[in-house]
């Protein structure tokens, strides 16, 4: 006979913790958080830098401090947390197979599930960087874990490929620990990370950021000896003659994050090709009934505050689902959300305007750098939200909010688009 829990939350990082607390506050007390690591907090434990929590707490916290606030919330509420527990599969009817050292291999039936597994870094192989495969190549996050959690500095002469936030943060971190960061190369003509990180992590330490550059060769059969960096053209193809050799013992990769949805696939849930996360509606429900998703497993965020907010919604919606509230009270009135001009994707993909009483968040990323632009949300009857922006960049997620009183005005598809000014 399978064990039971009302709400199973897969992942005890910022998303899982916030979802758990929110669901509890909606009256669901039988909650289990499954965390594969031996402590709660997820990736925040290794993000020892500050900059977290401005939106949520109005102050600047480090990753572990931010995590501690939510861990406290979960502990205060007495929510059950199974650390060291790896969920192996989820069936479409929410049967969860989990394994741990303490309790062995178990099957648990959940009334609702919240997916909060986070994301992983794109490895070297997925980047198709040619050359040898020596010691000394790490993703930025792996290096971050080694430096911050294990106290091990993996190298002294460093080149970083990709200007994602973790790469920028690690450029500073390794510099502070005594390493020499020679350059950060970025394939795109703009940075993949937040502007503040470019200022604080690169400019402060005079680390050059080479935009439109990439690594074209890796030297060293056993140990990394150096990398060759070349400029790329508009199609990201290296330009012959621009190659420059950098001697180094460490290459860090910060070339994008991928939502980790292997478990999601075991439940047969539909994945969005643009986000690599599940397709969800405005209640953050996936294509499997009673299975919700939030945080970086849904789409990669830049700010943990946005993760917490989103996870809170997932928690509340899961609680509503479990208590049967709002289940079939309304005739559904479903509208598609379309990524229009300049918009790469939207979360959610659909909205049921008859079945929501919360304000509607539409989150998205733009395709390019746009200056002096306007974000518009339009439906059959015209524009319902219009928001001017000094600048929008692909590396910073946008969030438009539609107030509940405007939802009634929606007819047909909801299209989110950018009116340019593009640079």
């Amino acid at each position, binding site marked *: 006979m399978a064990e039971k829990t009302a709400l199973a939350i897969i992942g005890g990082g910022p998303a899982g913790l916030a979802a758990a607390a929110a669901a509890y506050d909606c009256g669901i007390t039988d909650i289990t958080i499954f965390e594969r690591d031996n402590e709660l907090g997820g990736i925040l434990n290794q993000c020892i830098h500050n900059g977290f929590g401005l939106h949520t707490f109005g102050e600047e916290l480090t990753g572990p401090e931010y995590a501690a606030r939510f861990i406290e919330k979960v502990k205060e509420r007495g929510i059950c947390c199974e650390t060291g527990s790896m969920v192996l599969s989820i069936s479409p009817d929410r049967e969860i197979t989990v394994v741990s050292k*303490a309790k*062995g291999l178990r099957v648990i039936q959940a009334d609702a599930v919240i997916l909060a597994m986070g994301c992983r870094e794109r*490895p070297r192989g997925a980047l198709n960087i*040619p050359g040898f495969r*020596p*010691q000394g190549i790490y993703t930025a996050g792996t290096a971050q874990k080694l430096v911050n959690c294990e106290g091990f500095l993996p190298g002294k002469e460093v080149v970083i490929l990709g200007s994602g936030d973790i790469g920028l943060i690690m450029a500073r971190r390794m510099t502070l620990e005594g390493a020499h960061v020679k350059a950060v190369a970025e394939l795109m003509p703009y940075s993949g990370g937040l502007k503040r990180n470019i200022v604080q992590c690169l400019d402060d330490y005079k680390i050059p950021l080479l935009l439109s550059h990439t690594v074209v060769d890796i030297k060293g059969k056993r140990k990394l000896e150096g990398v060759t960096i070349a400029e790329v053209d508009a199609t990201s193809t290296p330009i012959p003659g621009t190659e420059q050799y950098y001697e180094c013992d460490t290459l860090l990769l910060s070339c994008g994050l991928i939502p980790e949805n292997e478990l999601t696939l075991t439940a047969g849930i539909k994945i969005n090709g643009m986000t690599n996360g599940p397709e969800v509606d405005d209640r953050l429900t996936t294509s499997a009934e009673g299975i919700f998703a939030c945080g970086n497993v849904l789409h990669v965020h830049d700010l943990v505050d946005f993760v917490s907010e989103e996870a809170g919604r997932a928690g509340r919606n899961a609680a509503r689902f479990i208590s049967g509230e709002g289940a079939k009270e309304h005739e559904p009135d479903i509208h598609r959300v379309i990524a229009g001009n300049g918009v790469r994707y939207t979360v959610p993909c659909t909205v049921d305007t008859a079945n929501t009483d919360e304000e509607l968040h539409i989150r998205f990323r733009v395709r390019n750098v746009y200056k002096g632009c306007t974000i518009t949300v339009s439906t059959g009857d015209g524009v319902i939200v219009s928001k001017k922006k000094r600048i929008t960049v692909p590396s910073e997620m946008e969030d438009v909010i539609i107030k509940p009183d405007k939802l009634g005005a929606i007819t047909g598809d909801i299209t989110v688009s950018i009116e340019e000014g593009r640079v």
Partner: protein
Amino acid sequence: MKYDAVIIGAGVVGCAAARELSRYELKILVIDRESDVCEGTSKANSAIIHAGFDAEPGTLKAKLNVQGNALMDRLSDELDIPFKRVGAMVVCYGDDELPKLRNLLERGETNGVKGLKILNRDDALALEPNLADEVYAALYAPTSGIVCPFEMTLAFAENAYMNDAEFMLSAEVTGIEKTADGFTVKTTKDDVEAGIVINCAGVYADRIHDMVCEPSFSVTPRRGEYLLLDRNAGKTVGCTIFQLPTKMGKGILVSPTVHGNLLLGPTADDTDDREFTATTRDGLDSVKKKSALSVKNIPYGQVITSFSGLRATGSTGDFIIREDEKIKGFIDAAGIESPGLTSAPAIALYIKDIVSGILPLREKADFDPIRKGIPKLASMPAEERAELIRQRPDYGQIVCRCEQISEGEILDSIERPLGATTLDGVKRRVRAGMGRCQAGFCSPKVIDMLAKKQGISYGGVKKNG
């Protein structure tokens, strides 16, 4: 120290020979310059157990391929080697190429390959729906298979070790001298005395040969680049899809692996650099372009790694497996390019026959042919897995989340005989770090386990070599 037989090279051929010879009352030593077995060509190839229709009839390649293929079922049972007879197809693109397929079929039948048949497009599509639209017909070989080349090599090595063969690793052979009753093999570690020397040195086999014999052949490394795709892409094909062979090899193949990934490659470029195991932009591009000729819907976005291996292409066109004409007791197993992995078990028997012509071989009473691999919890039935975790709770602590490899399995890989001493060693034994994140998450923990076991700092833990 005096050994009856010293085997130079701990690749699949050297380890298979060691295992075969460990059946007999012989004192055996395997020497390799690397710190682990399976560090050369054996770790970077197509992982195919070829049917045997490709090699020219009458050659050693033809004979040993078909024999080797036939031995795999039993070896897989005895040595716990992941092996699947998934079959293979060679595709062609038009009526004008049909004679070439027929040639292959006839050649295969002459070589003794069973079950070959030519399929028209519809019949081929029924088996492989993702064949490219241009595919016209295919030669189908049901006896072709796929194997884990790491575990195959390790299994031979471990079983040889269990049966008292010794291994001297991290020892590069620097010279060989003929003595009155054998050889002195000089290495960067110890010098050893050998009655017989068996040269299984892969791309360096000609250099080893020339240390004590008159030059009689050369080895040219032929580089092959590969792309490995995520397990989510593994079902793109069910069997191995070849293109019609050229004189440089069997062309670009598209194949499932025994672990459910999809493998594309190899290219074929002769090189004079025996250490040139790097990939190149052109090579990787070419693998993509050419694989698309035989199979459609390959999700190239799901590439998780690329690698390159060096085939040891001999100057005679065939395997060179013989006792040197002048220097008696020196046996070459050289030029072992494709189908070398398939042939390895048969090459081992062939070497044993040569040895038996030099020394009398007496079977050991206590030879144990059975080697049990590290339990693979991720692919085990739930009941069995649950029971194992009850016995050993560390089998329940997942360290490598992509491949679902537990702390217990990693510990086994480090602690068993000829255990892993490097990150790559752990990866080849239990697949921790072999998955889609390519060791991003598990390497700090694996580094910690290796450091503790060896009593060294994190900085001392090596990725390879």
